[in-house]
């Protein structure tokens, strides 16, 4: 069957969904308004529910947006050939890992059941783990025993790092690595004709993640090169294994930047902090995703690009609405939103 026939439904659905993607500028114009976002804006962003029933709290807002994203991801999955759906399922798994991280934090700090429940996001059919069951575990050791029944490898990785509360970032890093490892494995499961496009797109995202981790581990946390290199994902696009190994040996930002491939080096021109570097890379990837959405036809990667952009859009919307809900000043909200597009 041709790609046209295989992805006709998906292509049509992505095109329909893509109309919901609104530029950040249109959102910025509402920062100074004392009122909520207008219903027609929310409707054009595909979120009429937010206008009909404005969320009462920040967590309600977050849940609404996540539910919406899950619903769209599910809609895309249904339009995809069955052998390609695993990648979207793994993509959405990030939210489950976010839930797990929240749960671990709650267990480590002895949060009450009700409080812990508030931190968890309902990700609908993308949930693979019985979080509610985990929630009722007595402590972290019981939680890990329960987790091991469903994902022994992840439970083992968490156990390695859980005992040292000073180094909990290593635990998060191990979980994130687990996620990207799964994403790469899901990409390898794709039919060969879809694999290359997906690998290139995911490779760019992994490059961004690796670069940020690299800077953070080497410069902010002062980890040694072998340890840093161990925690990096090896399947980036431009930052391949040998490049990462070389970068991990360097110990200051400027030398690292100089050792980056030309594209990244230019992108990080004038940058002097990890956060700024992260934002520059993100903007670069968002631009690439927009290009894919515009020019790619009848390919799985178009759906991935849409999800990537949509997630960013919902995050921006979340920042604005949450800022308003919590009564933050327009300047603060603008700063949060523009942090991503500065420079």
């Amino acid at each position: 069957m041709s790609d046209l026939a295989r992805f006709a439904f998906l292509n049509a659905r992505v095109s329909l969904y893509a109309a919901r993607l609104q530029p950040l500028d249109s959102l910025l114009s509402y920062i100074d308004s004392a009122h909520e976002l207008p219903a027609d804006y929310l409707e054009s962003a595909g979120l009429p529910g937010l206008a009909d029933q404005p969320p009462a709290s920040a967590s309600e807002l977050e849940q609404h947006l996540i539910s919406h994203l899950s619903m769209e991801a599910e809609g895309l999955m249904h339009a995809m050939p069955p052998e390609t759906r695993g990648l979207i399922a793994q993509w959405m798994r990030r939210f489950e890992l976010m839930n797990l991280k929240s749960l671990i934090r709650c267990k480590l700090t002895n949060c009450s059941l009700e409080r812990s429940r508030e931190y968890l996001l309902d990700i609908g059919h993308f949930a693979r783990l019985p979080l509610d069951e985990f929630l009722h575990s007595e402590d972290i050791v019981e939680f890990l025993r329960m987790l091991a029944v469903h994902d022994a490898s992840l439970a083992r990785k968490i156990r390695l790092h859980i005992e040292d509360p000073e180094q909990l970032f290593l635990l998060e890093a191990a979980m994130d690595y687990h996620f990207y490892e799964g994403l790469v494995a899901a990409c390898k499961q794709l039919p060969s004709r879809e694999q290359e496009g997906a690998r290139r797109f995911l490779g760019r995202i992994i490059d961004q993640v690796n670069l940020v981790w690299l800077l953070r581990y080497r410069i902010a946390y002062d980890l040694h090169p072998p340890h840093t290199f161990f925690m990096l994902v090896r399947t980036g696009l431009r930052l391949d294994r040998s490049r990462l190994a070389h970068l991990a040996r360097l110990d200051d930002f400027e030398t690292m930047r100089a050792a980056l491939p030309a594209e990244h080096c230019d992108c990080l021109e004038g940058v002097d902090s990890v956060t700024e570097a992260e934002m520059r890379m993100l903007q670069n990837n968002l631009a690439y995703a927009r290009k894919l959405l515009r020019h790619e036809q009848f390919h799985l990667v178009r759906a991935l690009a849409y999800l990537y952009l949509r997630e960013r859009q919902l995050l921006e919307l979340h920042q604005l609405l949450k800022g308003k809900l919590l009564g933050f000043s327009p300047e603060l909200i603008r700063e949060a939103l523009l942090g991503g597009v500065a420079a």
Partner: protein
Amino acid sequence: MMFGALPMQHVTLYLLKDELPRAAVVLAKLGVIAPEEGDTDNGETVRPGADFQRSFTYASQLFRKIAVSLEFNPVEVMQESLPQQVDQQRLDEILDCLQPIWQQCNRLEEQVRRLREEIRHLSHQQQAVARFFNLRLDLEKLSADHSFLDMRVGSVDTSELQRLKESLELVNFKVIEFDRQEGRAHLVLLGLKGLDAQLNPLLTAAGFKILLVPQGLKGYPDELHAGLAKELAGLREELERVDGERSWLLEKYRDDLEEAARVLETASPFAELADYLVGHGEIVTLQGWVPEVELAALAESMREELTAFFWEVRKPLPEEIGRVPSVQRYPAFLRPFSTLVRNFGTPRYDEFDPTLLFALTFILMFGSMFGDIGHGAVLLVAGWLFRRKLGDFTWFIMLGGLSSVVFGVHYGSIFGHEEVIEPLWMSPMEDPVMLLVLAVYWGIGFIALANLLSILNLWRLGLRREAILGQRGLAGLVFYAGLILLVIGFQRDGAAGLLSLVILTLGGSTLIAGAWQETTARGGERVLIVMIEVVETLIGYFSNTLSFLRVAAFSLNHAALAFAVITVAQMMDGVGHWLALVLGNLVIIVLEGGIVLIQVLRLEYYEGFVRFFRGDGRAYRPLRMKQTGTQRPAGQESI
């Protein structure tokens, strides 16, 4: 009531808040009320059972975890010996009792996990050590205290091996893999001394477990092996000790756990009702559905057991019909058929219940397709012999067998032998064409009946336009009658009769009018949609009718298969002859019997049920007492 549900009444109970725990037990013991969500007044209404439900859920979870951990099975108790009621205070006491028990169990479970992991790890090490000493390495040199060489022997998960190797290359460490077992790679790491600061965090992150440090190499392999064996024995002893502690815990807390089981069993109805209880202050409301015949018993129990209550009883309102649970009570022989009907869907409260009709047509079709005195008798006997295992389905097998016997008498067939008795009617092979024609007539009757029932159901549902103008309504039935008369006319006289044409035109034009009204499309698209619907109806009726040819086809098939078995058996002598007969008939009974069963179900579901049966009713699930379950979740081992 054979073709419909028992009349139900909507009951609103007004109960005293303090008596809720007792009322829940009374209602659950009687097991007649199917509760439903009550109306809430602008969010002001409180849920008086919410706290109780939360405590109950937590206590039940704790109890289940303890029971699984300690392998505790509560003794089944008679309902009479359960507590009269369980209130919040009693439930909290049980929680206070269960929490420390679970803390001890949790500690034990974790100990067991660690010990098991250690034992597994050491067992691997034992084997790895044996292999390590088989390596062609100069151990004396390696174990010497070199001022520049760092050597470590240990293991890592195979999933981490590659990136560990690559990371170690950054500090010029070499990795030699010498063994691999159950997902762990056993390695020798060799590099320059003095890099601990770089090496140790990496090895921790990779989950590298040290097996030998250079000093360990000085021991002889046997000594090292023995050392590991000793360590293993120690761990196994420790495991036994923990197991003993578990038994001790179980004995220590057995009475508490028995009591907790009783309390939780008694508390479960109130916890279940919590979702449905609403009210302000001291009066709490519970709404639900009760079969009319049970109302008197309900009133009597409530009067006997509660100090005060008030109730309102009324018939279901028209707008409520869709959510009234449907209760059917069947004699034992209809229960398996009812299960098969519910496999398709639950009849709505006001819907025609097809169970009896399904049973009759099923028995008739099965017998006619599988008619043989011998084969039927085997089914009869098998059904009786396995009645304990078959439960309700005993009747299903036996009635199928009986029907086969009756049709066998008409076909004159015993295990395929048609010369033993004179048929009451004829052998299927004698006049196959007649059999096929009869099957088509049976199909026509079946479809016409299904359409009539569809009209009845649509009318009851208030879908009057569809009942008259729809495909499954009167128009469809008239159209079908016209079609049948047309075919009969052509078959008998070689031409279409006037009557058939009139009926066909009447049915067809009504169908067209119905489809025209229903579609919202415009112009040519509308014409196209209507035409497609009429053509689809026409083809559908033809193919559905012809589908019944399988009734005749399978009775012929049955006779032919039995004839083939006899022929093969006759080609053999002695044991071979009897073996061929027995095995052949066994194949017929099991394989062909199964196929016939599937075919009849297919006819019932897809030629019958889809025409008239919506099956979107609400099952009747009254509040009942529940036992506290203690099954260990899949994948979790017991201690």
